[in-house]
C-alpha cells in the first residue's frame, strides 16, 4: 500500500486498523525525555543545536471531480478515499486539461494518486490509452506495482499493469507489451530495452497518452542530463507513431522543480506546490557530537553518538529506524545496537539490518516485522529511503547528513508516515556539510535552497544519445534537438563513420548497438575494473585460479582511487592496489587490513578557453564562468591514519596526465585585494586554499551534488582568453607549502568534474552572492580555532591563520 491509501484509510478509521498503544503526545514526551538524558552530560545547546517542533496539520480536502468515472471513484472509495487532498485535486484538474505539470510534495502526501487517478480515468474512458511510468529504481516501480494491482483488482482487472525492467523474464515481455496499459519501468530500461526496439511497442507508442516521472528531483546532474536526452528520444519515437504524451511529474521539495521539469521534458510545465495532506506532529532534532579537541576541531565519533541516541530511544520502547550513509556504517551500527539490545530468550532479534545485498526474502521478512512491530529497530542505508512500506515508525535517527535536504526529509519521513507523532534526529559528522547544516538550522528548515540542474546539451552526452536516436529512427535535417546544430553534428558523425546520409536522412551505419555502450549514470563509458587477486601468487592474476572482479571505477576517478599502492575500500573491505594496468584498464588488488587510507596528491592546471560571462565585483575581484581545459596528474599520495587523520607516510607516483574539456566558475582576486591583507605570504596562500575548500563544500550543498562532481584548482589569472601562455600553476593538495609559488592575482576555479560540463558553472555564477554568504557563515560559525576539516580543511596542511585569512578575503568580497 502506498502513502495515499494509508493516509486516507487512517483518516477515516476503517475497521481493522490497529489502534496504536502509544498516544501521540507520549511519543513527543518520551523523545524529550531521551534528549535531555543525552544532553544532560554536555552543554545542551551545543549538542542539541536545533529542536524544532512541527504541530499537526489538518488536511485540506476537495471533492472528487465529477468527471471521474463512477467505477474509479468507487474503487477509491473502497480504499477509504472519498475526497481528495487539495493538491491532488489541483493535479487532477491539470491532468484533465492536458497540461504538463509537476507536483511538489513531501513524503506521504498521497502523490501517487496525483497520477494514478487521471491516468486510470483516461484508460477507463478509452481502453486503448497507454501510460509509461518511470521510476529511478526498480524497487520503486515494484512498490507502485502493488498499489496499481490493488486498484486493478477493485476495477475487475479492466486494465493491465506490469513492470518492465531487467528482471522481467524474456518470455513475459511480449505479454507486457501487448497487455500492459500502464508500464512501470526505469530510464535505463527505456534507454536500452524499449526505445531501440520500439517496433515491438507499436501499440504502446501509438496510444501513449501519459508519461509519469516520479522522484523527479533525482534526475539531476549527469543522470538528469542523460534522462533529458532519453526523453528527447522518447518524444521522437512517440511522434513517429503519431502521439504526443502528456507529462506528469512528482518531485520532493527542491527550489526549482518547475525549472527542472521544463529542462527535462522541454515543454511548458505547471507546478503544484501547495500541499493539502495532513501531517502528524513531529519533532526534528539536530544533534552535534561534542568537541573533544577544540584546536583540531575533532568531535566525538558520530557513529558512537548515533548508537547512543538510538539506544536511548529503543530503551524507551520507540520503534526506531537508523540511517547510515554506507553499507559499512550500517554493519557497524547494527553490531553496536544488537549488542545493546539482546533478544529475549526464544524471541527473534529485535534490531535488524537492511541494505542492498540482503536477499529479497530476508528484506520482505524484515519489512513485515517492522509493520507488525516485532522488529523494534532497523539499521538501513538509503535502500529504505524511498517507497518501501514499513509502516509507521516512531523515530528516525540519521548518522550523518544524507547529502541533500530533500533526501534528509525523505529519511525523516520514514518515521511517522501516517498519523502518529514522531521524531527525527540528525547526528552530524564532522564533514563540512553536516556541520553547516546543524549550525544553520534555518538553512535546512527554511524554504528549500537546493537547486537541481541538468545540462542536456552537454556534447559528450548528447552525441551518445544522437547515435542512439539515429539507430532508433533515421535523423532528419528538419529535426530540432536541444540548441545544437543537428545537421553539423550529424555530418561529423557521418565523417567518423557512424552515420550515412541517404534520401536526406542520416542512418545508423554500425553493427554495434549504441545504447549498450552508453550508461545513463556516467558521462563516459570508459572505466577500470578492479580485480581481487588475493591469494594469487602472480599479481597479474592470470596464472592460477580465477581472479574475481569486485567492482569498477569510472575513468575520471580511477587515478585518484586505484593508483598503485592506494588503499581501495569496497564494501567496507580494504584492498591494496598491487598494480594498475593502464592500457587494459585493470587494477589488481589484494585484501588487506590496515589502519590508514590513502589520499592522492593531484596537480591540477586549468586553462580558460572561453569566457562566457565575466563581471567585476567588490574586493576588487571578478567572477566568471566559461569553458576550460583541465589538465591533472596524480603525482603522489599520502597515507592518512584513520580517526586521527595523521599523515603517516607518502609516496610518489608516475601516472599519465589526464586532460578534460569542461566548464568552470571562478573568482579572481585582484592584486590590490591580496596586497591589502595583513598576513604573511604563506598565511595568505593558506587562506586562499581554505576559502576554496569551503566554497566547494557550499557549492555542493547548493547544487545538490556530490563532492566528486566538482573539481577545484587555483591558478594565476590568465593574460587573456585563448592566449597560448604557460599553463597556469596549480594544485589544491600540496603538502609542502614552502614549494608553493606566490600568486599575484589568483583565480579560484570550481569546475564540473565531467567532460563537457554538466551544467553547474552558470548556476554558480548566478548564485555567486549566496555562495559567498553561505561560505562565510560556514567558516564563521565553525567553533574550531584555526581551521578544521569542517570549514577550511585540515589544519595540518595549512598555516595556522588559514581560517582567519579566508574570512578576511570573504570580508573584502563583501560576503
Amino acid at each position, binding site marked *: 500500500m502506498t502513502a495515499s491509501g494509508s493516509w486516507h484509510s487512517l483518516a477515516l478509521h476503517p475497521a481493522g486498523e490497529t489502534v496504536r498503544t502509544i498516544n501521540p503526545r507520549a511519543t513527543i514526551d518520551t523523545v524529550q525525555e531521551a534528549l535531555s538524558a543525552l544532553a544532560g552530560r554536555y552543554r545542551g545547546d551545543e549538542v542539541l543545536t536545533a529542536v524544532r517542533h512541527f504541530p499537526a496539520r489538518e488536511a485540506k480536502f476537495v471533492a472528487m471531480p465529477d468527471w471521474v468515472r463512477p467505477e474509479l471513484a468507487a474503487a477509491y472509495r473502497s480504499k477509504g478515499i472519498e475526497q481528495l487532498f487539495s493538491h491532488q485535486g489541483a493535479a487532477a484538474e491539470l491532468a484533465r486539461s492536458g497540461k504538463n505539470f509537476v507536483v511538489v510534495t513531501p513524503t506521504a502526501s498521497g502523490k501517487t494518486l496525483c497520477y494514478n487517478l487521471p491516468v486510470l480515468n483516461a484508460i477507463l474512458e478509452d481502453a486503448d490509452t497507454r501510460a509509461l511510468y518511470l521510476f529511478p529504481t526498480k524497487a520503486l516501480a515494484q512498490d507502485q506495482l502493488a498499489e496499481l494491482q490493488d486498484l486493478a483488482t477493485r476495477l475487475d482487472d479492466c486494465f493491465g499493469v506490469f513492470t518492465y525492467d531487467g528482471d522481467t523474464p524474456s518470455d513475459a515481455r511480449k505479454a507486457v507489451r501487448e497487455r500492459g496499459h500502464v508500464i512501470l519501468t526505469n530510464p535505463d530500461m527505456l534507454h536500452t530495452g524499449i526505445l*531501440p*526496439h*520500439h*517496433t*515491438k511497442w507499436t501499440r504502446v507508442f501509438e496510444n501513449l497518452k501519459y508519461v509519469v516521472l516520479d522522484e523527479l528531483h533525482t534526475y539531476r546532474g549527469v543522470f538528469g542530463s542523460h534522462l533529458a536526452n532519453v526523453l528527447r528520444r522518447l518524444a521522437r519515437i512517440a511522434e*513517429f507513431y503519431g502521439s504526443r504524451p502528456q507529462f506528469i511529474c512528482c518531485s520532493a521539495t527542491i527550489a526549482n522543480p518547475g525549472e527542472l521539469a521544463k529542462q527535462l521534458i522541454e515543454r511548458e510545465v505547471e507546478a503544484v506546490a501547495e500541499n493539502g495532506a495532513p501531517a502528524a506532529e513531529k519533532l526534528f532534532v539536530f544533534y552535534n557530537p561534542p568537541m573533544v579537541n577544540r584546536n583540531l576541531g575533532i568531535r566525538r565519533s558520530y557513529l558512537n553518538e548515533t548508537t547512543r541516541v538510538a539506544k536511548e530511544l529503543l530503551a524507551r520502547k520507540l520503534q526506531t529506524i537508523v540511517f547510515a550513509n554506507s553499507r559499512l556504517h550500517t554493519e557497524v551500527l547494527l553490531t553496536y545496537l544488537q549488542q545493546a539490545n539482546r533478544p529475549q530468550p526464544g524471541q527473534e532479534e529485535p534490531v535488524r539490518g537492511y541494505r542492498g545485498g540482503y536477499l529479497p526474502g530476508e528484506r520482505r521478512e524484515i519489512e513485515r516485522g517492522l509493520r507488525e512491530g516485532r522488529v523494534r529497530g532497523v539499521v538501513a542505508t538509503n535502500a529504505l529511503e524511498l517507497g518501501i512500506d514499513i509502516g509507521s515508525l516512531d523515530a528516525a535517527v540519521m548518522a550523518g547528513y544524507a547529502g541533500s535536504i530533500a533526501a534528509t526529509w525523505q529519511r525523516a519521513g520514514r518515521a511517522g508516515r501516517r498519523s502518529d507523532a514522531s521524531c527525527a534526529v540528525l547526528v552530524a559528522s564532522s564533514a563540512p556539510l553536516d556541520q553547516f547544516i546543524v549550525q544553520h538550522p534555518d538553512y535546512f528548515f527554511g524554504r528549500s535552497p537546493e537547486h537541481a540542474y541538468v545540462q542536456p546539451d552537454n*556534447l*559528450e552526452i548528447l*552525441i*551518445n544519445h544522437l*547515435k542512439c536516436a*539515429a*539507430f*532508433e*529512427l*533515421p535523423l532528419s535535417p528538419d529535426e530540432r534537438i536541444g540548441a545544437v*546544430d543537428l545537421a*553539423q*553534428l550529424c*555530418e*561529423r*558523425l557521418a*565523417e*567518423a*563513420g*557512424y552515420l*550515412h*546520409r*541517404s*534520401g*536526406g*536522412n542520416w*542512418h*545508423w*551505419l*554500425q*553493427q*554495434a*548497438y549504441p545504447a*549498450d*555502450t552508453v550508461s545513463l549514470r556516467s558521462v*563516459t563509458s*570508459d572505466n577500470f575494473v578492479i580485480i581481487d587477486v588475493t591469494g594469487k601468487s602472480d599479481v597479474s592474476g592470470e596464472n592460477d585460479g580465477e581472479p574475481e572482479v569486485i567492482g569498477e571505477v569510472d575513468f*575520471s576517478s580511477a587515478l585518484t582511487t586505484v593508483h598503485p599502492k592506494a588503499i581501495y575500500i569496497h564494501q567496507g573491505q580494504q584492498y591494496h592496489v598491487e598494480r594498475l594496468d*593502464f*592500457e*587494459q*584498464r585493470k587494477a589488481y588488488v589484494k585484501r588487506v587490513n590496515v589502519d590508514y587510507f590513502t589520499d592522492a596528491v593531484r596537480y591540477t592546471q586549468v586553462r580558460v*578557453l*572561453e569566457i562566457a560571462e565575466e563581471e567585476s565585483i567588490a574586493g576588487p575581484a571578478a567572477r566568471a564562468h566559461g*569553458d576550460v*581545459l583541465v589538465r591533472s596528474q596524480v603525482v603522489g599520495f599520502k597515507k592518512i591514519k584513520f580517526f586521527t587523520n595523521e599523515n603517516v607516510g607518502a609516496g610518489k607516483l608516475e601516472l*599519465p*596526465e*589526464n*586532460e*578534460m*574539456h569542461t566548464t568552470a566558475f571562478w573568482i579572481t582576486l585582484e592584486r590590490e585585494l591580496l596586497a591589502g591583507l595583513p598576513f604573511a605570504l604563506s598565511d595568505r596562500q593558506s587562506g586562499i586554499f581554505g576559502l576554496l575548500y569551503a566554497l566547494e563544500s557550499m557549492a555542493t550543498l547548493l547544487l545538490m551534488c556530490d563532492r566528486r562532481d566538482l573539481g577545484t584548482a587555483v591558478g594565476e589569472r590568465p593574460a587573456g582568453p585563448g592566449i597560448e601562455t604557460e599553463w597556469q600553476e596549480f594544485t589544491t593538495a600540496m603538502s609542502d607549502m614552502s614549494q608553493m609559488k606566490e600568486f599575484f592575482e589568483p583565480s579560484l576555479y570550481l569546475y564540473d568534474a565531467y*567532460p*563537457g560540463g554538466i551544467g553547474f558553472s552558470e548556476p554558480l555564477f548566478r548564485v555567486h552572492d549566496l555562495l559567498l554568504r553561505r561560505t562565510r557563515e560556514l567558516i564563521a560559525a565553525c567553533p574550531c580555532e584555526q581551521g578544521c576539516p569542517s570549514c577550511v580543511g585540515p589544519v595540518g596542511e595549512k598555516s595556522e591563520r588559514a581560517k582567519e585569512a579566508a574570512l578576511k578575503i570573504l570580508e573584502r568580497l563583501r560576503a
Partner: protein
Amino acid sequence: MSDTTLDRFSRVKALQRPPNGTPPRATSSMAAKAFDIRESAVGVPRGFSPNIPEGAERLAELLGAAALRNEFGEHLALRKWFSDVADRVKTDCSPLGHGLADESVDASALGLLMPDAPREVADPRQWLFLDTETTGIMGGSGTYAFMVGIAWWDAGGLEVEQFFMRDHSEEHALLLTLAERMAERHVLVTFNGKSFDWPLLETRYRMTRTLRPPAPRAHLDFLHPARNLWRLRIGSVRLQELERHVLGWNRGADVASEFIPEIYFDFLRGGSPEPLVPIFLHNQMDLRGLAALSSRIVALLSETERAGRDGFELFGLSRICERRGEAKRARKHFEQALAADELPPGTDRVARRSLARMAKREGDFSRARDLWEGMLGSSQEGLEAYEQLAIYYERHIREPQRAASISRDALSELQRARRLGTIARGACQKLRERFEHRLARLERKAGRLPLESILVESSAPARESDRTGKERTSRARIG
C-alpha cells in the same frame, strides 16, 4: 555554433570510431584523441538526396542484375535458376535430385515438423525460402536487411531471387517487392529465421509506417529439427557446417558472415562494389543449402524411410517424436538408434533412459528392467536406474531385500561419484537422502511381520511415480 563549441566538439571522445580490437587509448584526453576519421571515405560531401553510391552501376554489371522499379522507387534485383540445388558445388554425395520439387510433403514428416499445419504446407510449390544479409546481428530498429534472398522450386530446379538496396533510401521499394513475392507463396521457410530474419523484417516493415508486414500462412523453421538431428554429431548447427557434413558440400571460398556488414558499409561510403559480389554468392548458397537441407530433413522425418539414417539421426528423430507425443514412433526409433550402436556413451544412456521410461509407462517391465540393469553407474541416468530398479523390486517384485541391496549399491556409487567430483554437492545430498530414506524403510519392512507390512502397504498409494512430489508425500506418510 561558436568556434569554441566546434573546437570542443572536435575533441569529443564519443565521436571516436568504436574500437575494432584496437587497445583503448592511454588517456581520456579529448584533445589527444580528436577525430579518428577514415580519411579515405570522406572526400567532398555528397549531394543531398538520394545518393546511390557510385559503384552501384558497376555492381549491376558485375552481377548481371537489374534495377527493379515500383511505386516506392528502385532497388537492385538478381534472378538465377539452378537446375540442381547442388549445381557446381563440389560434393562427395550422390545428388539429392530436386528434393521436394514435385511431390507433396509426407504426412508423417509434416506432423513432426508442424502439427496442425495449414494445408499449404504440404505443397512444396507454396514454399518460399528466405534468407537475409543484415547490417548487424543485434536486432533493434537500427539494423537493416540490406539484402533479402528468396528461392522457390520451379521447373524442376530452384529459382533464386535476390533484392539489394543500393542505399537506405531503397529499402521501401525492396520491402514492397518482397511483400509481392510473399503473396505468391504462402509458406515461409527459413533457417533460424523465426528468431532472427523474420522479426527483423517485420521491424523493417513497421518502420515504413505504410507497409504492413506480410503474414505468411505458415512459417517453417528448420533450425530446431536440424539441431535435434545433427548437433550431437557435428557440434555446430551453422548452415555451412551442415552443408559440409550432412550434404557433403564444399562451398570453397566464402565470405565470413562477420565481415558482411562492414563490406556493405564500405560500399555505402563510396567503396568499390567488387567485395559485394561474394555476399550475393554467399546468400545464394545459403538459400540452396536451406532448400537441400529442408528436403533432407523431410526425408529423415518421413515414416517411409527413404534415406539411410545413422544412429545420431535416429536418436534425434526419436527425440522429436517424443516431444511431439508420438510415443510409439519414438520408441521404435530409440530402439533403432541403440541397435545402430554408434552413439557415444552419454547419448546412449540418455536413449536408454528414455526407452526405459517409455517401457515402464507402457507396463513393459521386463524391457525396462533390462535397460536399467544395463545402465547402472554413477552418471545421472545410472543413478536414476538404481532408483527405478529399487522401486521395481520393492513394489512390483516385492523383494525388499533385493531393493535394499540395490539402494546400498547406489549409496556407494554416490559416494564414489562425490569423490570423483562428477556430481554436484547439492544433487548428491538430495539423492543420498532419498536412498537412505528408502533403505531405512526397506529395512524396517524386512523386520516387520508380514501382516503389518501388508497393512502399511495398503494405506500408501499403490505406485510410486518417477521422482515426483507424489513420491515424497507417500514416503512421508509411510515414515
